[in-house]
């Protein structure tokens, strides 16, 4: 303790205690490696703990040549006291799909970051990037050069397409209904320009989950959520079902009664699913992974619009394509995406996410604009208010002549 106090960060020192791995230890480790930034970061943070207020200022626009995104500028408001972190910018590195690495790849990144930055990272950021935490403006070009030399590139920030992410999918999950990793990598490569050069009204995020369990939380956190599902029957191994029953699972209570549509039954010998009423929620499969699997006619549901609450309230994504086959080169999906971007680019207000745009112009009008047929799958229920807009109405002969109006008379809807 004595020596701890001596280093003048008693509050943070306290956060090294306890069973959970400590971020403080991480910062200290790098300080011990001789990273002065980390020592000063620690003391400024201790100060925040005392003051109960942060000491970072609004970030200015910093970045690398030719890119509009990928770097978050950050400056502290106590420059004289903590000069080593006067600038402390974040570099967002586009992670490999599924966050897979080899030890060598990790060491490469470490070498680069030890040389050009604080040595601190987030593995990973909430969007999925490999976040390099803290460097100075003059190091941005060098770090970028080193990264690209070793086949890494920056992710998104600002009003651009953000780094897409994908669940582990077919690499390690028996439930993947499409190749999340390949799709994620493919669209990342296809849309490099949209990622690096902000040209949208606001950010646009894509997340790929292989099944309705949605292990990358795409329905809550992506402007475009691509969630695997299937059209045919759940595959059942009745012997394994019976094995679960014998092992003491109460299939009737814990599986059947929890089925959202009550479409599955346990006869005591057989597990029976009325697939026509199955809404592919995954529960029975989750509960009996050895016995059940999704069908084989698989694809994905495409949903749009999830975002955090700022400023009209949070949104979950809503269905725009109930079922789409997901095979390379994913043309149908890419075409749809570009049509959506075109409409958004033209009609979206500054800092208006796609989900907000859809609510402002109305889903019906949005569908028309992006050339998608309305389907009941897109709504929880049809409208319950009588305020229906009609774009045209009929007029009698005389009126027309008076007004020389066309029949039916036309007026764009709102």
């Amino acid at each position: 303790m004595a020596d701890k106090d001596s280093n003048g960060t008693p509050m943070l020192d306290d956060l090294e205690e306890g069973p959970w791995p400590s971020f403080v230890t991480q910062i200290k480790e790098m300080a011990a490696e001789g990273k002065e930034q980390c020592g000063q970061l620690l003391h400024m943070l201790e100060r925040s703990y005392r003051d109960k207020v942060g000491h970072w200022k609004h970030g200015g626009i910093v970045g690398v040549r030719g890119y509009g995104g990928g770097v978050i500028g950050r400056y502290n408001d106590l420059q004289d006291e903590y000069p080593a972190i006067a600038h402390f910018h974040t570099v967002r590195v586009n992670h490999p799909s599924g966050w897979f690495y080899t030890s060598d790849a990790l060491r490469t990144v470490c070498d680069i970051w030890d040389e050009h930055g604080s040595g601190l990272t987030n593995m990973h950021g909430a969007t999925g990037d490999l976040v390099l935490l803290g460097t100075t403006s003059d190091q941005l070009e060098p770090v970028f050069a080193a990264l690209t030399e070793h086949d890494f590139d920056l992710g998104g920030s600002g009003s651009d397409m953000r780094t897409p992410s994908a669940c582990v999918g077919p690499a390690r999950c028996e439930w993947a209904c499409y190749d999340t990793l390949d799709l994620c990598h493919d669209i990342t490569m296809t849309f490099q320009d949209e990622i690096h050069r902000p040209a949208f009204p606001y950010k646009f995020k894509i997340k790929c989950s292989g099944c309705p369990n949605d292990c990358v939380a795409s329905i809550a956190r992506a402007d475009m959520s691509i969630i695997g599902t299937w059209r045919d029957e759940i595959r059942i191994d009745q012997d394994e079902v019976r094995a679960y029953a014998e092992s003491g699972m109460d299939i009737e209570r814990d599986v059947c009664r929890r089925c959202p549509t009550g479409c599955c039954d346990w006869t005591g010998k057989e597990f029976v699913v009325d697939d026509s009423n199955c809404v592919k929620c995954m529960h029975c499969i989750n509960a009996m992974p050895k016995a059940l699997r999704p069908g084989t006619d698989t694809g994905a549901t495409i949903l749009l619009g999830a975002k955090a609450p700022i400023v009209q309230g949070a949104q979950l994504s809503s269905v725009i394509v109930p079922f789409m086959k997901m095979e390379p080169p994913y043309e149908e999906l890419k075409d749809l995406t570009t049509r959506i971007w075109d409409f958004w680019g033209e009609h979206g207000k500054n800092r208006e996410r796609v989900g907000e745009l859809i609510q402002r112009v109305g889903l019906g009008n949005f569908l028309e604009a992006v050339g998608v047929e309305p389907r009941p799958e897109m709504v929880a229920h049809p409208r319950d208010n009588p305020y229906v807009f009609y774009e045209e109405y009929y007029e009698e002969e005389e009126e027309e002549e008076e007004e020389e109006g066309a029949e039916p008379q036309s007026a764009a809807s709102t």
Partner: protein
Amino acid sequence: METQRRTDIGPPDFRNFLPPIVKANYGKWKYHEIVKPGVMVHVGESGDKLFTVRAASPRLLGTKRIRKFAELADRYCGGYLRFTSRHNVEFLLTDESNIDPLIADLATLGHPVGGIGPAISNIVHTQGWVHCHSAATDASGVVKAVMDDLHEYFDGTKPIPGKLRIALACCLNMCGAVHCSDIAILGVHRRPPRVQKGLNKTCEIPNVIAACPTGAIRPASADGVPTVEIDEESCMFCANCFSVCPALPLADPLNDGISIWVGGKVSNARHEPMFSKLAVPFIDNDPPRWPEVVRNVRNIVEVWAEGARPHERMGEFIERIGWPKFFELTGIEFTKQHIDDYRYAGLSYKRSTQLRH
């Protein structure tokens, strides 16, 4: 004289109109049973039995017919009768043997008996062209046409899984409170109000502008005279402006008509109360019998009667099978109009992957 003018006396005390058996068993009823279509018996803890015979009524009644009802009440149940919250007439009998003669007399008079239990009861409705200035369609005529077609569901000839409540309102004011009915028939305008000359004489222009929920009404002036103009693109025909200003009529033969709504309920039984949702956006007014309306209502009733489980109301049935299935089974086309675009629109979008494929 003035002193004799009676005011604020309120309605007659209902207690003076209660049959003796009701007074005797007031608040002490034990259970009830349905005896046969349109007839039920309530049994008191005392063992007393009160038989109720429920007869259909057009609601619009002349005094002549009302006197006939009074006669029947005198003949069969000591002059005691009541009307229901759905505008049927109920005769309150103690003598079981009077039931059939009463039903026979009612039949002669043209009043089928029914609507009790799992049945389609009378259609709650409104004034329409008979008495209202705001109507986009008639009320009584549509009701007559629809019930002529559905009467077997009222009189018990065709049994159904549960109660099915139909209501009609002739404009968006919804005096029939159709917003929570299993099937709702709603008159709708589809042409923006036409500004009449001299509006400023009859109406307060600021009020008129304030009345519009979509801000479609703007101040204007026609050869010097202040008036308003309508931004037709943002009008959704609610007629609230007309309610506050006669000089903004919306009624229009070519564009008025009927929409059909489904799945609402009021009771708290099983599922919480629900609003009705749009099924058929628009059907032209086609008097005297609105055949397309009649056909659509029957179609929806049959789909429900076919597929619903015991006690299952329309809305519960649709929630179970899913809206896509409802549109598939009824053959009703799903259109842009079905997608909400008003204040809470976003909350009606499907925000999950729980879909049947």
